[in-house]
């Protein structure tokens, strides 16, 4: 069967870039009331599991047991199915408040979390090339003179670090100092594949042992979402927020773990939307990860570090309800280095063009500022 991948996307496939972005009609000419939330999925989220290409003839073969999750889910964009845990997101998708861009990756092509996140957050072309982040540079582009960015975290992540005004806020109910240490250890071990695997497994085992079926995760996600909405609702205050999520590094037991993390993500977005009320119309959320995961399931019911993934966009005026991207296919010869979903679009382009549209900024200037290359 000779499948035309562009056709599989239902005719929506176009080259990525400003032109490819959803046409969003902005109510106001000024961007003063616009809000942006960047949700970083640390740990390489599995785009092939989140926006599953169930219509691709190779998917079931590659994914084995992991492909069974989508039996009862509705198709979106012809080829795809949203992960069943993205219940509220699916409703937003149907209402045009959500969309996905598939087979995208940053410029980074190796498979180290540490380096990949550094490239994604800094907006540089190589790890450790830049000391400031694209989200911080975006703060400088927003016309409002007192615009600022805020991280819902104990410390300011790299994406928000830089000369423009930014801060961080974490109420005491968020992970305490000990968790901060544990998180730092997780980051530290990203540089050591052997320790990284052990660490991920120990964290997952502990969570299981402590009976974390996801409920406390969900509660926390709802809290973070509500808090973010409150912070962004203030007349004078941050216009850009960043939320870091973890637990995406699903080397094993991916079914349970992805279900838990996506339920949290779904809850997080829904509580942001609820909390923002009418401001949701002025808000865009970008959900992105440093790279994707292998096309095939591995020996421990998980997937390993890969390349392209899917990026999710949400917003009250998004004009979504589609899956964009140039679908590369999943035949052996289609895979990047014979193992990963091949990147056909640049994550940098997706981010730059969508925020330029959202804030009504010049596209070229935005791209140059966020990703100076």
């Amino acid at each position, binding site marked *: 069967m000779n499948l035309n991948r562009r056709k599989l996307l239902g005719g929506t496939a176009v080259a990525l870039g400003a032109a490819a972005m959803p046409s969003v009609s902005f109510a106001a000419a000024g961007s003063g009331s616009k809000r942006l939330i960047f949700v970083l999925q640390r740990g390489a989220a599995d785009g092939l599991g989140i926006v599953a290409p169930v219509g691709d003839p190779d998917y079931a073969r590659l994914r084995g047991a992991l492909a069974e999750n989508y039996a009862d889910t509705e198709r979106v964009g012809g080829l795809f199915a949203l992960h069943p845990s993205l219940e509220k997101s699916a409703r937003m998708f149907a209402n045009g408040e959500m969309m996905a861009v598939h087979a995208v990756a940053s410029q980074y092509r190796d498979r180290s979390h540490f380096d990949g996140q550094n490239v994604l957050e800094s907006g540089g072309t190589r790890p450790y090339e830049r000391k400031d982040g694209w989200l911080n540079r975006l703060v400088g582009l927003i016309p409002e003179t007192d615009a600022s960015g805020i991280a819902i975290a104990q410390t300011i992540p790299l994406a928000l670090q830089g000369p423009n005004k930014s801060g961080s806020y974490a109420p005491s109910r968020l992970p305490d100092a000990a968790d901060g240490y544990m998180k730092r250890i997780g980051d*530290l071990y990203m*540089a050591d594949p052997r320790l990284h695997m052990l*660490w991920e497994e120990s964290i997952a085992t502990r969570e299981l042992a402590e009976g974390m079926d996801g409920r406390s995760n969900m509660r926390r996600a709802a809290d973070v979402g509500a808090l973010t909405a409150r912070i962004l609702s203030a007349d004078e205050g941050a216009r850009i927020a960043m939320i870091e999520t973890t637990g995406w590094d699903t080397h094993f037991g991916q079914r349970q773990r992805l279900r838990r993390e996506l339920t949290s993500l779904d809850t997080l977005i829904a509580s942001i939307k609820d909390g923002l009320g009418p401001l949701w119309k002025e808000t865009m959320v970008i959900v992105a990860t440093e790279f994707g995961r292998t096309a095939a399931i591995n020996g421990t019911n998980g997937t390993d570090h890969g390349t392209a993934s899917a990026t999710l966009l949400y917003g009250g005026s998004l004009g979504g309800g589609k899956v964009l991207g140039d679908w590369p296919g999943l035949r052996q010869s289609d895979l990047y280095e014979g193992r990963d979903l091949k990147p056909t679009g640049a994550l940098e382009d997706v981010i730059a063009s969508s925020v330029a549209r959202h804030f009504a900024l010049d596209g070229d200037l935005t791209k140059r500022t966020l990703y100076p290359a």
Partner: protein
Amino acid sequence: MTKSNWSIAVRRFGYGGKPTETYAGAPKSWLIAQIDNYDPLPQALRSLPGSDKITRQFGEFRRLGNDDQGLKRNARRALRGHVRSAVGARIVSAINTRDQFAERLVHFWANHFAVSTEKRGAGPLAGSFELEAIRPNIFGKFANMLAAVETHPAMLLYLDQAQSIGPNSRRGLRAAERGRRRAGLNENLAREILELHTLGVRSGYTQQDVTEFAKALTGHTVPAARRNRRNQRSRGSDLAYAFVEALHEPGAKTVLGKTYRASGAQEVAYILDDLAAHPATAKHIATKLARHFTSDTPPPALVTRLETDFLVSGGDLRSLTLALINSPEVWVEERDKFLTPWEWSIASARAIQPDQIDPMQIRRLMINLGQDLWKPGSPAGFEDKASRWAVPESLHRRVEAAQTLGRRGARHDARSLGPELYSGIWSKSSALAVARAESPAQAMALLLASPEAMWR
């Protein structure tokens, strides 16, 4: 010599640097100097009691009747005290020493000839065993170490040799007359000498070899620990070790195809000498030594070189050690050995260099991490492979322990300590994590838990 060679010398061959220690010159000369200036009895261990005294105490304890509960309790406490003080002294010595390589070799050989504190009688002797049978011999002949080990009361008690009686010995025949079925041959020590201490498992010996060897071993015993109240007045009954002819199985024994006709204690001495010189022993020892200092699957060329040295030098451990440190395979940058809980705890204590060392605190830490000194769970000793120690839960506990230790070491600046302790190998990502820490204590914790601190 590159900077990382010092890291290899100090971490692969030693227990890691200290904030106040500096290393200069050639790393290999530093190692060789430790062989040349070796002190078999470091200061920290001089006050420990010897096996004679401990064995007599154990014997007295065993002879106490059930009506002496108070005395029994005190005696038990005293025996446990010997374990505690020996464990403490070993920890303090490992933390304080500058001769880290020599210490590591002592610990390597002690684990090769493992005894266990879990065994009644043997436990309190574990410290004296290392002091008397291992330490004096690490740069001598393997055969000497072997002979010292197999006749030490700790080993004789641990592997049940002390109770073994030749069926046709004077004592054996008398026991048979009286219908005492329990008195007889015990093969435990004979088997473990062949399987663990010398030839290695599946190296070709048979059950017949084990039995014959066990017969030859009869008579080597621990008189002071023997229960019999009647024989305590007889000559030599308070000795920690003796060859007792009355227990010895008479007649020639054939082990590995060779027939031994020597009388008395000499018989086992000949067998042990032959085992020490056996090619299978050379291979077994070479493999274990190479594995300890390189990786779980040691380079075959290194194993062959050590094996050859062992055979050519007649099991000279000084020569073997020099062959090891002169091998290019041990100086490669790859770090494949995951530190055992013992190693990591000692290295961490050295890195934070507390004003006062509470060895029992370090011991509790090791127990929490899954390795209690001299309690390997089997005569094979502690497993010397990453697969045994690099497991999720144990890593998690180590990371938690690093947090506690980090607070104790918070007076150090981890940012400058990192490149000092791990000179030439301190990675950018670890430096970054340490630099970004929110407190000096957290920075120190991250340093102690860093990949550089986990592998050697």
